[in-house]
């Protein structure tokens, strides 16, 4: 097909069709959405627990909110949007689904998939892929791709946000408690690096374990885990969330808890009150009958990016990708500042919200934290580190 278009006659034919057709029919843009089949995270019992940082629903819902919100501009530009949703069972299926969506003419695909599925499937795809749910830093470093953009904040951005906040408060003595799953181990390393980067002092690093074996019960006892030490704050790494939720107010000293319990750094919180956030949160709640989570925000802003590029006349996949990473391409994420994709790893730079689940206590970057070019780049991997080699 592309061969034919390259031939002059083919090009003229295509142009002629475009001339005849465009004024009569609105242009249609296809947006792909790919998520996991039978997603355990979205089981109703799991969603009811409402752990901060966990998803609250399928990404296609937030994609729909973004399109609806933009209807006036889309109508004015005579642009129609089609959402093409798909689910995948594993990495190979994810690749097949991405290829199918690419072939179906999608200009971009919003993804909520595990990191290793993305890492294995994405290299086969040319169109823009928006990682809207996976925080793993490896996708922004060793596994980065020129067409893989990240609207969900990375794990490191989250850890940096909390570490800066502690540094600014001068709560520098940190007791780290962590789980022992593979995810916990990776995330612990990220937290430790952030602690070091912002000059905090880890006074101890202790594993906890929720176990079926009664002889191991002490390994999940908050009092025992936090005794006989002096610290300003407890930082808990618990990907699952069950242990961390029970930690605040149950430790041996009257100290705050941060990380996966107590104070969290998240992409979005439904009770954020600044920068027009309540309007977006209400639109979402009203449309879907549930609060908007960080995952929803990431899928929503990814869609807004696609629509904004399309309204700027980037209608083909190649034009989209080019437009999205232009230095002047900025997005309004209802966080009070302009957001844009980092040139070096395609991560959307953004403030993070610090919340205890009841209210938004503050924002990161923390006040007083400085950066030579853009203070948002104090969260996550910065350009000079050169962690993403393929641009």
């Amino acid at each position: 097909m592309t061969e034919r278009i390259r031939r002059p006659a083919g090009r003229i034919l295509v142009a002629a069709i475009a001339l005849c057709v465009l004024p009569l029919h609105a242009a249609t843009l296809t947006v792909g959405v790919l998520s996991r089949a039978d997603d355990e995270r979205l089981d109703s019992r799991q969603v009811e627990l409402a752990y901060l940082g966990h998803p609250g629903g399928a990404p296609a819902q937030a994609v729909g909110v973004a399109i609806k919100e933009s209807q006036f501009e889309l109508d004015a530009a005579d642009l129609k949007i089609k959402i093409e949703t798909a689910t995948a069972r594993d990495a190979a299926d994810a690749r097949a689904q991405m290829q199918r969506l690419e072939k179906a003419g999608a200009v971009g695909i919003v993804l909520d998939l595990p990191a290793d599925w993305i890492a294995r499937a994405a290299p086969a795809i040319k169109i823009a892929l928006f990682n809207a749910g996976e925080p793993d830093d490896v996708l922004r470093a060793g596994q980065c791709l020129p067409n893989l953009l990240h609207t969900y904040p990375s794990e490191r951005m989250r850890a940096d946000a909390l570490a800066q906040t502690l540094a600014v408060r001068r709560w520098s003595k940190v007791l780290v408690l962590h789980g022992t799953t593979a995810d916990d181990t990776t995330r612990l390393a990220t937290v430790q690096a952030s602690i070091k980067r912002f000059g905090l002092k880890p006074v101890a690093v202790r594993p906890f374990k929720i176990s079926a074996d009664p002889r191991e019960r002490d390994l999940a006892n908050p009092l025992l885990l936090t005794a006989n030490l002096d610290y300003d704050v407890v930082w808990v790494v618990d990907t699952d969330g069950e242990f961390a939720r029970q930690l605040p107010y149950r430790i041996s000293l009257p100290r705050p808890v941060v990380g996966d319990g107590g104070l969290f750094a998240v992409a979005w919180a439904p009770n954020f009150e600044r920068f027009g956030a309540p309007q977006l949160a209400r639109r979402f709640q009203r449309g879907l009958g549930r609060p908007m989570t960080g995952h929803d925000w990431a899928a929503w802003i990814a869609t807004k990016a696609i629509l904004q590029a399309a309204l700027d006349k980037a209608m083909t996949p190649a034009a989209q990708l080019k437009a999205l990473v232009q230095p002047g391409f900025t997005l309004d994420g209802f966080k009070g500042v302009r957001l844009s994709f980092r040139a070096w790893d395609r991560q959307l730079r953004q403030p993070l919200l610090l919340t205890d689940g009841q209210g938004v206590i503050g924002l990161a970057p923390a006040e007083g934290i400085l950066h030579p070019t853009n203070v948002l780049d104090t969260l996550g991997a910065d350009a000079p580190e050169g962690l993403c080699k393929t641009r």
Partner: protein
Amino acid sequence: MISRLHRHLLWSALGMLALATAAHAKDTGMAFVSSEKDNALAVIDVKTLAIAGTIPTCKRPRHMQFLPDGTTLMVACGDSNRADLVDVAARKVVGNIPLGDDPEAFDLSPDGKLAYVSNEEDGALNVVDLASKKIIKSIPVGKEPEGVKTSPDGSRVYVTSEVANMVHVIDPTAGKVVKNIQVGKRPRRFALSADGSELWVSNELGASISIISTRDLAVVQTINFEVKGMRPDDITPVGLTLARDGKTMFVALGRASHVAFVDVASRKTNNLVLVGKRAWNVALNRDGSRLYVANGLSDDVTVIDIAQAKAIKTVPVGRVPYMVVVDD
């Protein structure tokens, strides 16, 4: 109450002269500051620049404007879906008008009979008849409409949409959008030039002002702001107002915590005055010698002496101040 309002509207029918006379007749010597989080207005004595009291209002008061009588302040409340009418001399609410869901800003028709209200939640401009207290029209616009400005002859209403990044030009009689003008990112507020030929629009996330020709209904120029020591991302212009002599536009630069004095003719920023955090809306006193700036993040109002281009005092007010109206 209604009869009183009718009386006010009769007054307004006499025209601008009546407005000026009425306003002069009832000077309170106070400035009123709406505070989004306190459901109240802070009252500042303009002579001493001290707090003289507070006036409880409906929930989340934001935009305020005097009715043509010059003594009734109409205060739009986002969380109460109405406006309270505040008798500024008595310092109390004397009535209210339903405005539709989540009203943010409004402007009045030149005859003072209608209010054009931006309704953030609905993405609509509601037309409210003040005498009957009825919403008589609802005109769909882009999501999150904010700033509203009626043309001096009343034939057009301009509305910004923060999400669509547009200025909608509305024919209020026909009740429809006649033109959409693409401006910068997150457009907020309006001010007209002295001769009415230019409409200035602040773009909060565009760090700029779009100047629209009211004849051609097109953007003729964009003014980008620069503040020494600040990055473009920190410059978020919102409130703006024209100096009494028509030569200078005062633009609050939001997170950049400065107010820019922009020369209307040359488009150049001649002065930058340091104020509080997230400088939001700006208002002049009657003789145009002072500018009051609501600082949304530091919960205070900065008073600027315009001749000296200097902040003379910062007055603590309620939480999340939104707008100031000066009645000196």
